[in-house]
């Protein structure tokens, strides 16, 4: 069962189209939802949580239709909003326990779960302090604790590292990585691509309300490219390689070819056949950032889902 799936999803805010005919199917695990501000990340999360009703399209979370079975879906979902969501006049323990009760956990178990969750995020000692006295980093941890206190199957993290100093950010990313130990899937929304590379194994790139890329991070974010600089005209060699089924991009005296097993052998044979001279040949990696901005060598096609 996919973590969530959307089919022909469109959402408009008045005349502004926030999401345009998106179709996605995402497996469980740590999912990065990446895009610039205004790309549609928060809108997609709100639709997945049933907070927004989409203009058109079908949405399923954990196999439940969010239009008709939203209560069932939300029972196993946690949400860490980007903005403030904590009542400052309560203690961390009281609020997290209350959050568990809202999800249907009985009061006594909720208090125990609150202690366990706050201990996990490193606030075991401070749990009885009022939230008013907490720092930004502690706030973020309490937000994470309330999101996981009821043992959700999936937790939506909306910009969890926002406002954190470098040390706090590292700690938060470590915490996100630890959620996999408890079989909690993560949907991590951010515009910081390095955070995604640190924590996620699947990534959805959104741009202007459309899905730009959707696939496993190891195939999308770190795809290798063989770059060759020639002394002679590269076109005869490129034609030979294309004839052998490779995707070749020519730019002046340079050629680039998606890396794959056996490519270097094919390249060697093609140069032997064409007789062209090679100045240099290197294999480079496309970072997630290059994939997002579509710079650097040619990208592989989107992975079918």
């Amino acid at each position: 069962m996919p973590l969530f799936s959307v089919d022909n999803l469109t959402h408009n805010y008045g005349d502004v189209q926030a999401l345009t005919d998106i179709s996605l199917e995402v497996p469980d695990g740590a999912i990065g939802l990446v895009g610039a501000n205004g790309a549609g990340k928060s809108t997609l999360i709100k639709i997945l949580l049933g907070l927004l009703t989409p203009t058109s399209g079908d949405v399923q979370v954990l196999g439940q239709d969010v239009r008709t079975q939203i209560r069932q879906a939300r029972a196993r979902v946690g949400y860490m909003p980007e903005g403030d969501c904590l009542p400052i006049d309560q203690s961390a323990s009281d609020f997290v326990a209350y959050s568990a009760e809202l999800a249907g956990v009985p009061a006594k178990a909720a208090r125990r779960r609150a202690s366990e969750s706050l201990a996990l995020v490193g606030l075991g000692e401070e749990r009885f302090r009022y939230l008013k006295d907490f720092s930004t980093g502690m706030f973020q941890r309490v937000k994470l604790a309330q999101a996981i206190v009821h043992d959700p199957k999936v937790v939506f993290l909306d910009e969890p590292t926002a406002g954190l100093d470098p040390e706090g950010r590292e700690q938060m990313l470590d915490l996100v990585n630890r959620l996999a130990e408890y079989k909690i899937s993560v949907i991590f929304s951010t515009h910081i691509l390095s955070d995604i590379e640190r924590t996620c194994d699947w990534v959805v790139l959104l741009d202007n309300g459309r899905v730009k890329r959707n696939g496993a991070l190891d195939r999308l974010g770190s795809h290798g490219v063989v770059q060759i600089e020639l002394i002679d005209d590269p076109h005869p060699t490129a034609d030979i390689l294309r004839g052998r089924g490779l995707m070749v991009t020519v730019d002046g005296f340079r050629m680039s070819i998606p890396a794959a097993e056996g490519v270097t052998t094919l390249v060697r044979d093609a140069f032997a056949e064409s007789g062209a001279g090679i100045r240099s040949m290197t294999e480079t990696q496309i970072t997630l950032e290059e994939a997002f901005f579509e710079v650097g060598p040619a990208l592989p096609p989107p992975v079918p889902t």
Partner: protein
Amino acid sequence: MSEQAIIVDRGYRPYEGPRGTLRSSMWAIVKDGYRRALGLRRRAWSKVMPWGLIALMLMITMVVIAVAWFAGDLIPDLPSYAEYFDLTSQLGLLFVALTGPLLLVPDRVNGVLAVYMSRPLRMSDYLLAKTAALVSLMLTFYLVPQTILHLGLAALSDDGFFSYLGANLDVLWKVPVVALAYIATHGSIAFAVSAFLGRSGLASGLYLGFIIITNNVAGLIVSVATFPGAKYAALFALEQHPRYFRDWVFGTNAGFLIMEEAGFDAWVSLICIMAIVALSSLVVWRQYRKLP
């Protein structure tokens, strides 16, 4: 013994216990409402106002019972159950002014609605639970002193405890019905005002100001203005509708009422109370349906 002791760090682990239904989630909101309104599990200053008002309410009851006990023969006209509402309704108004905004405003201002709405709840469930918290708190606020009064007067009755209770059975439905009329009027307006404001204290102040101003302006227009239709201004004396309804239920006339002066029957006040509740509910719903 101590050698055998071990420290077990349970840590975070999957939850395999029971999970409640919508009702248990709503009950959690109601309980949280009680804690917030009464300042429980919060700093000391949060407890001062609610518990001060509760203490005053109980004190009035105790004074009435004490007077009946020590000077009942000297003061034959002790406040009736209807008149007791007049003695305490201003405290009730203050309690609603305090409680209504506290139940709604902090959740919205602190952004907690986003957490509520990620749980198996809809906004309508949240608002219903908040209404249940307000109504049950206010019913307790009104009915506990009335119950103490009732039992106290029964204990002091010359006819005997049970004879007094038997002779006043009608009180058992009249007092709760009138209390509900007060709560419906005051509570729904307090919620409507709170739905728009970002500070609980400001909402409390504006609510009280709104009630006082509408009452005084309506009273002034009805008694002074001579233009046709001036009497309809009485309909805007919002605070007086539950009082007129109370007189109707108890069959008494506990004092000057603008609606009565304007020539309206008591059932018009009942209609007005229902209209206030409907309009306030609509206003709150329109404001909340687009949140968070």
